[in-house]
């Protein structure tokens, strides 16, 4: 447990003075995601420790270099969890990288995303100033919601020093029910579940079977079990972990892994390739021989967007419209006027 914020601040002040780019890193588990950022490393892995955690308040505050696994272990000790079920993508995963990349796991459509659970943060901005936004309470509308803006900004707006998160009790019980079906039927079924008052917290179609995870009190799971068709999936935890960490056999393919985001009930898209549907159909993983521009065009017609998640080195994120890009550039300049942080990682010139 150590606070190295003054060392980090010195490095940023110097980079600001010299206008030299900085590449924010800690565990390196998400280095694959996004374009290669320029600049010398600013290393957060020594900035660690849980600063405050009171299970009764449902709030945890930790320094950004704290390992995600350490945080999850402490929460589990109190019967609690990070309800957005963040992927680690490696042992070194830290809280800062998790929030900066804004990634959420299979529970996301049912309990919320990483940004939904962010309550506040301490930021080191591009002028080397330390500022706090949000707080450690659930309801807070004082000032703009900067801590959620920083979630998923891939470090382009500043260095996250500490983050406060809402945490939740772990469900007392959980079961996964699966049944074989077609992709069309799986999409329709997962969509129908959105109108059912069942404690569903995971829904996936793996190409052959539809898996529905139900979690809650013992009674809730027992009662819902009878309402969902199919058989109990043995060793369900390792299935969902494999899905979250992209370790299932599906993810062992060669080539670029695309993340296709559409409305959950969107019918199967006419795109050649191998599909796996998570988030009840709202997040679809794809390996496809088609080029990224064609993919984006087809997905846009269904109102969606595409990220080249793994295995690409350019055109990774869905392009922004001209007015949106201008707005992003103005915001970036407001946080990082010398453009030193994670330059070009998200979009060229940002």
């Amino acid at each position, binding site marked *: 447990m150590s606070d190295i914020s003054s060392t980090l601040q010195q490095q940023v002040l110097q980079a600001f003075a010299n206008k030299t780019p900085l590449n924010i890193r800690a565990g390196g588990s998400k280095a694959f995601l996004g374009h290669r950022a320029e600049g010398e490393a600013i290393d957060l892995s020594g900035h660690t420790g849980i600063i405050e955690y009171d299970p009764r308040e449902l709030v945890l505050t930790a320094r950004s270099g704290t390992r995600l696994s350490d945080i999850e272990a402490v929460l589990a000790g109190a019967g609690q969890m990070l309800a957005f079920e963040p992927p680690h993508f490696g042992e070194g995963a830290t809280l800062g990288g998790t929030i900066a990349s804004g990634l959420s796991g299979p529970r996301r459509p049912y309990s919320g995303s990483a940004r939904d659970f962010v309550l506040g943060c301490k930021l080191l901005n591009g002028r080397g100033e330390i500022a706090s936004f949000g707080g450690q309470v659930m309801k807070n509308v*004082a000032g703009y919601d900067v801590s959620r803006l920083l979630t998923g900004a891939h470090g382009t707006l500043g260095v996250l020093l500490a983050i406060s998160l809402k945490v939740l009790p772990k469900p007392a019980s959980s079961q996964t029910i699966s049944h074989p079906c077609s992709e069309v039927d799986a999409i329709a079924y997962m969509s129908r579940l959105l109108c059912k*008052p069942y404690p569903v917290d995971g829904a996936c179609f793996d190409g052959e079977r539809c898996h529905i995870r139900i979690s809650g009190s013992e009674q809730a799971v027992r009662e819902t079990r009878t309402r969902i068709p199919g058989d109990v999936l043995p060793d369900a935890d390792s299935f969902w972990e494999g899905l979250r960490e992209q370790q299932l056999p599906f993810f062992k393919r060669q080539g670029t892994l695309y993340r296709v985001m559409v409305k959950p009930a969107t019918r199967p898209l006419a795109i050649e390739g191998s599909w796996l549907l998570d988030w009840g159909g709202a997040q679809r993983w794809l390996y496809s021989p088609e080029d990224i521009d064609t993919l984006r065009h087809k997905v846009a017609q269904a109102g969606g967007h595409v990220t080249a998640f793994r295995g690409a080195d350019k055109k990774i994120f869905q392009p922004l419209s001209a007015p949106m890009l201008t707005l992003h550039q103005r915001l970036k300049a407001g946080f990082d006027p010398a453009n030193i942080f994670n330059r070009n990682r998200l979009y060229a010139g940002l």
Partner: protein
Amino acid sequence: MKQRRKTNPELLGALRSFLPAESVLDDIEDVRPFECDGLSVYKQLPMLVVLPETVEQVQRIMRLCYTRKIPVVARGAGTGLSGGALPLEDGVLLSLAKFKRIIDIDVDNAMATVQPGVRNLAISEAAAPHGLYYAPDPSSQIACTIGGNVAENSGGVHCLKYGLTVHNILMLKVITMEGELLTIGSETLDSPGYDLLALMTGSEGMLGVIVEVTVKLLARPERAQVVLAAFDDIELAGEAVGAIIAAGIIPAGLEMMDKLAISAAEDFAHAGYPRDAQAILLCELDGTDAEVSEYIMAVRNLLTAGGATEVRTATDEAERQLFWKGRKSAFPAVGRISPDYYCMDGTIPRRQLSRVLKQISAWSAEYGLPVANVFHAGDGNLHPLILFNGNKAGELARTEEFGRRILQLCVEVGGTITGEHGVGMEKIDQMCVQFKPVELAQFHAIKAAFDPAGLLNPGKAVPTLHRCAEFGAMQVHHGQLPHPELERF
């Protein structure tokens, strides 16, 4: 009090060239209904009021104002409680009241697209035939509109479990001050680039004018049940809240009221509240049938073990509604027992509840102003209602001073000056207490990215550093000025 008001015949003519006569209000009696929002201690007549009904009309209005450097204040139903929709003497008041169409209920994807002037409750009513509803339920939900809910990031009594507005919307269509239409967020669960949806939510009309909102709908729980518990010590009630959460139960709603609030609500709603209690807790559990039964038993046991003098479960849906009616009508109920009341909206870490309530009680005696406390106990959002008489000389000023001290105390114990009502005009000076100059400067940079000319709702939500310096000079703390680096005036 005679209010000053400016006129601008040239702008009036330009607006009337494309808006029907009844959509551009200029006559003093026509604009008077817009002089304040739900916080009526602040009043200002606008220069003129426009009521467009199409997105194109909004764009044209914004462009006209932008080129003439005329400020614009957007307004929904006007139920806001922080003066966020207070008009400007030299500004246009843009009412979204005519945008009241529900555009689409998309059952397959559990979402609804609506215009900003649609009432909060109307969304749930339209979704009900499909077993769906819109979760955030501010107490004003029969009147307040979704556009205002987004602008203020409204909460309600169910947000511990179901979140605030920011957790329940997917996409916005927004007109910038320059008249440009932006789509923020998307119909999918996230969107490329920065999370501007979070930034827009709760931005109090400072960044853009919302002209369309896509919200997430949830399946109506199979069953909801409410438990009422009475305590003869408010501290025990606070402890019981912590015990329920520590047991791994997240109630759909968890509300606390103190003795004065109980008595006022009971007189008003006849909800069957125990008048002799020092505090009551309302704990709502929802979910599947068996799940609710299991949690009700657990919660009853926890409340009894926690020293409740009485634990009552609503016997049917009518009684459940009645229990809630008392709580939801607490504000108007207090309005009946006092000529005026002033509603505060701080949030604190729950463990600080007892300290904060004791201090409020001490100040109540010091100022001679009674306080009724209504508390979203699950998420630490405290609403002390200060009772006063605005016709007594100096009483409003003393009330405001008392209120300021409560909000500063909330910040001191690790909380915030506003949980759900927004900063608006009301808490602009308290922003100087909660935020350092570097943070306020960051807020101004965000504002400038969206609205470089500073014409959208200027003067609200985020104070200038000079304003904070002046405020600080009045509130010298421990002999030190909060912003010694700033020039004083």
